[in-house]
């Protein structure tokens, strides 16, 4: 991997993604610096979640080039970006973690096993070591005392905090948050945001966050990108975007969500 002369950990160049006849991302260009905290905002269907899902290799794309930490999503010698082998995609996936809107904890495993399972099975970590690390992560999200509970025994906010610990247990360099608080009751949003806020202080971790929590986005991001119709209409420092948006669509959108 050749990263020394490239400050960007993520680079989309001219990526086009279609679902059937619907073009979700159209010649999309976007790059993220190592350690940067970027928030993606915009109306639903504007392509922001798709960006995360492509990065997590949950969705293929049709055209263009995408690299992560110097590794291209195209397989060298492969037929195209969408035909990379599972082996190749698994190498990329090792650098990326994702927190989902609906938490997606494994219901048949205790909280501790949810966090320990992937480091043991995928990274080959010794179970004792993985458990020690998992307990530290669960302490970080304030749930070490729930380690023997099953997900159904936890509130939504607690489940999402476990999901964050689970993603962090894989030591990702890039962590993706796909509307992490949208499925939560309003009084549970705060506890999840405070965990994400703590993570935002980790210097080396690159974070991409899709959210509708505008105040939070303004507080934690280095950069805010406003998406509309598969493109970034406007991007900049949070104070610029929220303070004096230049683009008409951005102004309309912010007026509608901020009320």
């Amino acid at each position, binding site marked *: 991997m050749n990263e020394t002369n490239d400050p960007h950990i993520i680079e989309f160049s001219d990526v086009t993604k279609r679902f059937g006849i619907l073009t979700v991302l159209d010649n999309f260009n976007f790059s993220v610096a190592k350690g940067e905290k970027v928030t993606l905002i915009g109306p639903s269907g504007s392509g922001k979640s798709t960006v995360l899902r492509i990065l*997590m290799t949950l969705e293929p794309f049709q055209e263009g080039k995408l690299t992560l930490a110097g590794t291209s999503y195209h397989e060298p010698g492969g037929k195209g970006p969408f035909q990379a082998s599972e082996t190749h995609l698994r190498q990329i996936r090792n650098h990326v973690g*994702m927190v989902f809107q609906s938490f997606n904890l*494994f219901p048949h495993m205790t909280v501790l096993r949810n966090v320990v*399972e992937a480091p043991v099975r*995928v990274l080959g970590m010794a179970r004792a070591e993985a458990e020690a690390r998992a307990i530290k992560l669960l302490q970080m999200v304030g749930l070490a005392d729930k380690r023997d509970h099953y997900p159904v025994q936890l509130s939504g906010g607690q489940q999402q905090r476990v999901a964050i610990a689970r993603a962090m247990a894989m030591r990702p360099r890039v962590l993706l948050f796909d509307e992490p608080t949208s499925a939560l009751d309003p009084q549970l949003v705060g506890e999840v945001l405070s965990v994400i806020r703590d993570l935002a202080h980790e210097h080396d971790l690159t974070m991409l966050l899709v959210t509708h929590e505008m105040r939070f986005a303004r507080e934690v991001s280095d950069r805010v990108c406003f998406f509309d119709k598969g493109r970034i209409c406007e991007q900049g420092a949070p104070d610029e975007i929220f303070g004096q948006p230049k683009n008409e669509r951005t102004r309309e959108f912010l007026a509608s969500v901020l009320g």
Partner: protein
Amino acid sequence: MDWSAYLPMILQGAGVTMTITLASIVIGAVLAFFFGILRVEGGPVLSTIALCYTEVFRGTSLLVQLFWFYYALPLVGLSFEPITTGILVLAAHAGGYGAEIVRGALSSVSTQQLEAARALNFNRFQTLFRISLPQAIVEMMPAFGNLAIETLKLSSLVSLISIADLTFTAQSIRNLTLDSASIYSVTLLCYFAMSLVLMVAIRIIEHVVRRGDVFPRSAHS
């Protein structure tokens, strides 16, 4: 009629029925998982083979299958003991239905679970055995329970390939004593008692795979 003379015979027949049933259930479960998993994960060729297996055994008469394996197969030089034939055919039959149960339950595992597994970089094998199957097994249990009891009841057909199971024994005693009412009543009671035992066993297994009621009921505690 004097029951003390016939009771040992009936118990022996019941023992044969139970042996055939249990062996068929165990072998059938192995076949069910093998072919059910192939249906979902096998790729085009293997899943088609699995589909053919399930459809042939579900779509033909069990009695004719028994006759075919017992009378026709020896003609091409393959013959087994009657009891082996009975167990294999019943197992293949249960396996055909069981494979459909496994396939259905595996397909019902949510995409979100599979995406979470993918995001954690589990490979296909790990996703199947660590994530999908443990969740799917809970869904399979009620249907497997029905299938086990169905297999017990269908096992009476093996009496027609000269296996001395409970039904065969009952017929023999009836032919000796001509006391149809008593002998068939006792036989029904025996089947019912055995199916009760099976039901209890299945409940216990179900309880174990559900991890003592914690998973997956969605009530908050």
